[in-house]
């Protein structure tokens, strides 16, 4: 085939470039965000991203509340990472105030943090399957996910906001009589893993829709400072648990998972994202098992009385940084405490999606509009916020496309390429 002639034709059709706004309201999941795509035919040649619709001013609110109130607020930054933010925030405050955390508390924090990764990655896999038009897999994955939600509820009392970390320790124990529930859930997932790998990675239609779609090269992943599974899918061996071990991670060897662990070269595409996230479920299960087996005995909080804790925090002054490898990547909290005030003087949060936002641009460019839902979902489980799409051509004719239309296009493409 003569590629030159095709390029020439594309160039001649430049007048038919469309601008396609997507969002901010999305019918199924997660926060609102707005994309504006420039399309040449079906190809994406430009994309503009406008976040900020769900901005609630958390840091501003947190700097007007005492630290324990701010801790509950930090849990509500994100309902999926509802342990990751408190983990980073408590570490930041403990660093600033010089508070020690008992070993048992560190292990319990790790267990809940890894359980969150299990449910979050399964959630993501289900959403990804839905975007491809593979709803059977969505329902299968979400059904399997409920086991981790049950265990979280059993251990913490809540399905979503766990309220487990508090400055100087944890609020609840993982008692020995509940350990068998955890082992049961871990065995359940171990038995399922191969089934999930078969359903996702050995499925022809999933492979055809995700291989070489939304690719992010190693160099770009490094340049754009991508974090978490987005970076690891491109072969960047970057994981806070490996690079800067904290909590119980220091006692074990956590290795960043890349597609090489599955025996394939990293492409950084959506398929590689699935590989990394599924293998990380396995890794998390191993970490939880290690923590349960080696759970140290001892106290849960080094300052168990809340008034004493508040008084200690009020007296403290200094700066602290807390990092945690959340399911989507590195989350960082910075806190500055000043003596005499109960509120944090400065509170700065850097969430993983913020780092991964720019990785969207090279991922989208060159792909088709039917790939928008799955590429948008690829960096983050639910940040695929397209409800209605306005198609405006250069002459000013306007049509409205709904999310269903995009999903329909996506499903048609699956059928088309599967023959």
């Amino acid at each position, binding site marked *: 085939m003569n590629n030159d002639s095709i390029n020439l034709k594309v160039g001649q059709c430049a007048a038919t470039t469309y601008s396609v706004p997507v969002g901010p309201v999305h019918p199924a999941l*997660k926060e609102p965000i707005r994309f504006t795509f420039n399309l040449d035919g079906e190809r994406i040649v430009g994309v503009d991203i406008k976040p900020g*619709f*769900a901005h*609630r001013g958390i840091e501003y609110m947190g700097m007007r509340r005492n630290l324990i109130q701010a801790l509950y607020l930090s849990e509500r930054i994100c309902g*999926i990472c509802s342990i990751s933010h408190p983990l980073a925030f408590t570490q930041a405050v403990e660093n600033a105030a010089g508070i020690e955390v008992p070993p048992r508390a560190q292990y319990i924090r790790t267990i809940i943090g890894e359980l969150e990764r299990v449910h979050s990655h399964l959630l993501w896999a289900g959403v990804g399957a839905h975007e491809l038009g593979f709803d059977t897999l969505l329902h299968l994955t*979400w059904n399997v996910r409920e086991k981790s939600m049950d265990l979280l509820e059993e251990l913490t009392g809540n399905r979503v906001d766990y309220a487990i970390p508090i400055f100087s320790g944890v609020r609840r124990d993982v008692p020995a009589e509940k350990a068998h529930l955890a082992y049961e859930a871990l065995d359940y997932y171990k038995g399922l893993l191969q089934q999930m790998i078969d359903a996702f990675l050995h499925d022809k239609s999933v492979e055809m829709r995700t291989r070489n779609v939304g690719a992010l090269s190693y160099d770009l992943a490094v340049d754009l400072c991508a974090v978490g599974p987005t970076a690891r899918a491109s072969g960047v061996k970057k994981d806070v648990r490996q690079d800067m071990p904290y909590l119980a991670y220091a006692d074990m060897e956590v290795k960043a998972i890349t597609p090489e662990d599955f025996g394939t070269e990293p492409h950084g595409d959506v398929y590689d994202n699935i590989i990394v996230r599924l293998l990380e479920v396995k890794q998390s299960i191993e970490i939880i098992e290690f923590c349960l087996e080696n759970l140290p005995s001892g106290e849960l909080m080094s300052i168990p009385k809340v008034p004493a804790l508040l008084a200690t925090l009020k007296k403290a002054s200094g700066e602290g940084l807390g990092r945690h490898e959340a399911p989507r990547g590195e989350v960082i909290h910075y806190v500055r405490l000043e003596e005499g005030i109960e509120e944090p003087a400065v509170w700065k949060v850097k969430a993983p999606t913020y780092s991964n936002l720019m990785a969207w641009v090279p991922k989208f460019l060159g792909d088709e509009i039917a790939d928008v839902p799955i590429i948008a979902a690829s960096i983050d489980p*639910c940040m695929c916020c397209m409800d209605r799409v306005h198609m405006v051509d250069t002459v000013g004719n306007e049509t409205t496309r709904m999310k269903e239309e995009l999903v329909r296009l996506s499903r048609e493409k699956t059928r088309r390429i599967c023959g």
Partner: protein
Amino acid sequence: MALPRSFKRALWVFHVATGSCNGCDIEIVAALTPRYDVERFGIMLTGTPRHADVLLITGPVTKPMLPRLKRIYEQTPDPKAVIVVGGCGSTSGVFYESYNVVGPIDEVIPVDVYVPGCPSRPEAIIDGVVKAVAKLETLEKSGVGG
């Protein structure tokens, strides 16, 4: 659960996040998937407010979402019911004293059902939708929107 005899149609639900933290949003999806499976009652998410009987709204209203929420409400045909899922949509909850939060949903549009919880459990969300069915039936009997 015994359904009322007048339960005569499938309820289509449109979900809007006006600044929520995803907690309730994910629990809504959990309610749709096999463990809770509300689709067996014909309750289904739709992609557009124009096809919806019920608006399921999560989160406090942020400033950029204010005009969009009003517009979505206007686009939903009568008779309709509005359900607020979660404490922050009902009362602003933990999100008070912010420069970018307008307030709870009922300061912007009329609300019929409040589902408590932070986040609401899937069972509570299903209960909220059942309450909305009752409201829709009353509206239909009184002839609103034919």
